[in-house]
């Protein structure tokens, strides 16, 4: 780390910085709405809600729930109404920069699961790429891991910088700002902060370590991808795991790493648009085929897919990386308290037997 890179932002300086940033960029900050905490555009008077893990991760800023892929319009020849031409309008996202400030490291890390799918390799997704390139993540390191946190299981940690452009480390009644990327550095510069003192840096490191120690120890998961694979045909196991699941989409829609989508056309008169919307493998319709056949007719098969995808199929495709950032939202937002950790461990133990 280059000395002089680390800046200190006093607590009361935060909103000034955000205000400054919001002159040039859209700044999404966690704000309370109802009892939920959401990423909403900062406006004058917005109150930042940084104490709780945001209810929803910042996923939708890069991967919106509805992405318009294109607009189209039929144009008719008034003399020959049976002849019509189709006009297609591109709808790529603009190049304005968005800053997401106050997400947790796990929320930013989530995009590292997206990148291999949408942003690397043979097939590139221009919508994702455009948004990803123009979004800056200023993550807030966690001080107090929650009962549901398990980032350490999947390679993360309370002060993990993967996916973030700037890391905000709590210290000395404010934050030590640690730029991770050049974009991050530029963002920090806007604040005109003073360098962080060595004491502040030490305290920040100490608090980060403390937080990491407060996480329950991570189990060994190396064998899990294969073991889940072996359990694929074992429906009894999955029925047991899924007994209390109600097949809703709270887990997937709040998951920073779930990226499945559906594409549909919506019309109004002669105009229409092709949209891409989040899809949800817990839904019966996810694999409902046009013939009426559904290879995953029950919730057991769907839960198997969700867990399997995250802890088996994805890592097998992408260098043993789990498609999970350990944020624990699926656990705490589940109305029936389904615990993915329990399922992963059960799978591991089941295979052990």
């Amino acid at each position: 780390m280059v000395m002089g890179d680390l800046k200190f932002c006093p607590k009361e300086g935060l909103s000034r910085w955000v205000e400054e940033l919001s002159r040039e960029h859209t700044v999404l900050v966690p704000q309370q709405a109802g009892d939920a905490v959401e990423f909403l555009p900062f406006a004058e008077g917005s109150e930042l809600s940084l104490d709780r893990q945001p209810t929803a991760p910042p996923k939708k800023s890069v991967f919106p729930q509805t992405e318009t892929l294109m607009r189209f319009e039929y144009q008719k020849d008034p003399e020959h109404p049976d002849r019509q031409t189709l006009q297609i309008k591109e709808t790529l996202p603009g190049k304005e920069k968005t800053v997401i400030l106050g997400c947790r490291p796990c929320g930013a890390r989530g995009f590292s699961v997206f990148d291999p799918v949408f942003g690397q390799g043979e097939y590139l997704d221009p919508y994702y790429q455009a948004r990803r390139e123009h979004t800056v993540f200023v993550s807030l390191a966690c001080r107090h891991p929650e009962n549901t946190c398990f980032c350490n299981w999947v390679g993360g940690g309370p002060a993990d910088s993967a996916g973030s452009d700037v890391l905000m480390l709590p210290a000395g009644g404010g934050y030590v700002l640690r730029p991770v990327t050049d974009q991050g550095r530029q963002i920090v510069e806007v604040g005109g902060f003073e360098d962080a003192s060595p004491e502040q840096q030490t305290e920040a490191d100490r608090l980060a370590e403390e937080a990491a120690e407060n996480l329950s120890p991570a189990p060994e998961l190396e064998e899990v991808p294969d073991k889940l694979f072996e359990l694929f045909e074992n429906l009894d196991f999955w029925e047991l795991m899924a007994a209390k699941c109600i097949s809703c989409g709270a887990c997937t829609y709040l998951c920073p790493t779930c990226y499945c989508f559906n594409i549909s056309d919506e019309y109004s008169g002669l105009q229409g648009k092709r949209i891409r919307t989040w899809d949800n493998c817990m839904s019966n319709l996810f694999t409902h085929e046009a013939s009426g056949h559904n290879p995953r007719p029950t919730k057991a098969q769907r839960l198997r897919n969700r867990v399997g995808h995250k802890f088996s199929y994805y890592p097998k495709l992408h260098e043993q990386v789990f498609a999970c950032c350990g944020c624990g939202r699926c656990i705490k937002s589940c109305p029936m308290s389904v615990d993915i950790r329990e399922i992963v461990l059960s799978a591991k133990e089941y295979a052990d037997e």
Partner: protein
Amino acid sequence: MKYVAELKAKIREKLPELDVVIGWKQGFDPVHASPAFMTTPEEIEQLVVNPLCVQNLATYLPGLKGKKVGIVARECDTRSIGELLQESLIEREELTVFSVKCPGAVDLVKLRQQVGDLGRVRSISFDGPRVTVETPDESSSLDLGELLPGKCRVMAYDEPVLADFRFVDPDQDTVCREEADTDLVALEQMDLDERFAYWRGHLDRCIRCYACRNVCPMCVCQDQCIADTRDPHWLSAETDVRQKWMFQLIHAMHLAGRCTECGECERACPMDIPILTIRRKLNREIHELFGYTSGMDVDAVPPLLTFQPEEKSITEREW
């Protein structure tokens, strides 16, 4: 609860005749209970009954049709069971109801407002109306009455709608009570524009996860819900607030005269949208119009599946 031992014994006794008994067990942390599907004596040992057992287990019953099912149910939960029976969505012969006197319930949103992030709670214990919560920073002593979900404040249930076995502690009082519906009253004090803005604002948060629908014991369509189909195409896949609002109206209207106000929809909503209010409003109107309360009488006909040639409570407009 003192009766838990007795309850466990009874479940153990009946288990051989049953495919599964649904109850609650401790969840992933101190403040979360989780549904338990008990098939072995060991699993029965894990059964708990306390104010954290908030899930209405009746929601699982239609999915288990054809099996012999035992269910542990609070008084208000039996109202949902009554409605399911009334609509022939489950069979009485397949069902064994272990009715427990409700120990009260904790609205986790209210608890969070009192003690902060629930993910940091180390322990929680109950002693009559006192609730003691420990976090790494402090210990709080709270009043259970302050933590009750809204649904426990609008209707009082002393007795279950139906029960095969009943478990009550001798000194136990009914926790829920009938009071003015404060949420609804607050809403009705707003003017129309404010109410419109209220719903627009709240519903904009909806992520269309349909937890409200899937947790609802009365949502019998489940996989066939019209929210998901293109034929009929009631909703588009777009996520604008109109679609979200329309979905809530579909849900509410399909529950009209059927909703048992268990409040699971609102509890399940991860985005904390106060959707139960719409259903309560409809229930209140149904009661006023037809003198009907869903789920209380297994033999009644739901009000929207019947009519009177002269409707005493409907005053039609003169033109």
